[in-house]
């Protein structure tokens, strides 16, 4: 008789994920699912899936899900949470979604300190649409709409959302993590768990930014993509907890 040490959590469905090989989304999905079970909140979770690579996230999470318009996740989550205060509501968003078209929604969800959890996948590129420049694209990084690399004179500089949102009183928990190594994945898990614990405890707006690899649109092998996260992204987007007013 064999014992199971680790397997796909029940909070994920059996639907195989469509993400490209090596993409970080699936790891983050699993961390969320594990968190739901460990915090025993699986029956209370309602997810908001974005427009972008994670548009099908509603098929992967076993919880009830709402898929909404590009950038509007925090607004949709606000509507759900205010209507069902007992629900644990999360908005799952990419960088174009959260830091470009949805900038107003994320900032004002933080301003209102909505008691929701936001998972922000930062891979410095528009993935689903095929590699266009994102607000988080690094200086010099080539994208289909920045064919010569991002030039600050023309396209400005990358935006650091955790640092920016940390200026808002309503932000209660802000952390940036990565999923490039098993060690970082385990650290990411702790932060994601904290962000959901905060919601359970009524702390207010919590967001975890995840530096995630996009081998496909970076035109890199999986190994090269992990290297890019470490050597290029982390200097621009340092890992760490930027705000923690959650208490114990």
């Amino acid at each position, binding site marked *: 008789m*064999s*014992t*199971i*040490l*680790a*397997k*796909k*959590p029940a909070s*994920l469905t059996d639907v*195989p*994920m469509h*993400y*490209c*090989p*090596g*993409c*970080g*989304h*699936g*790891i983050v*999905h*699993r961390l969320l699912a594990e968190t739901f079970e460990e915090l025993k909140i699986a029956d209370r979770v309602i997810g908001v899936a974005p427009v972008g690579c994670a548009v099908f996230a509603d098929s992967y999470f076993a919880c009830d899900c709402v898929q909404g318009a590009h950038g509007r996740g925090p607004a949709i989550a606000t509507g759900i949470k205010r209507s069902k205060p007992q629900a644990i509501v999360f908005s799952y968003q990419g960088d174009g979604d959260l830091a470009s078209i949805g900038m107003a929604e994320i900032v004002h969800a933080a301003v209102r300190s909505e008691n929701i959890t936001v998972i922000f996948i930062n891979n410095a590129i528009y993935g689903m649409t095929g590699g266009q420049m994102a607000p988080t694209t690094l200086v010099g990084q080539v994208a289909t709409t920045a064919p010569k690399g991002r030039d600050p004179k023309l396209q400005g500089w990358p935006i650091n959302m955790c640092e920016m949102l940390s200026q808002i009183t309503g932000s209660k928990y802000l952390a940036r993590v990565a*999923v490039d*190594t*098993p060690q970082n*994945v*385990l650290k990411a898990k702790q932060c994601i768990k904290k962000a959901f614990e905060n919601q359970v405890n009524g702390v207010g707006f919590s967001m975890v930014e995840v530096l995630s690899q996009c*081998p496909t649109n970076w035109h890199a092998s*999986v*190994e090269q993509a992990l290297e890019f996260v470490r050597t290029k992204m982390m200097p621009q987007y340092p890992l760490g907890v930027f705000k923690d007013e959650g208490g114990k």
Partner: protein
Amino acid sequence: MPRIEVDDNRCKACYLCVNACPKKCLGKSKTISKKGYFPAVQERPQDCIGCKMCYVICPDVAITVLKD
């Protein structure tokens, strides 16, 4: 004895698990899966220490870690 099972229906052959394994006991399958990938496979189960690093890094949640 710890060992792993890889779900060929989910694995997309990114081999993050192969690189993550501290005992280097995973490898690439010689046979193609229904999905068109050469999935990861545990080549040397006898070396597995059940550390779950492969499970932790797998983006497709394709790995189950067991102990017999």
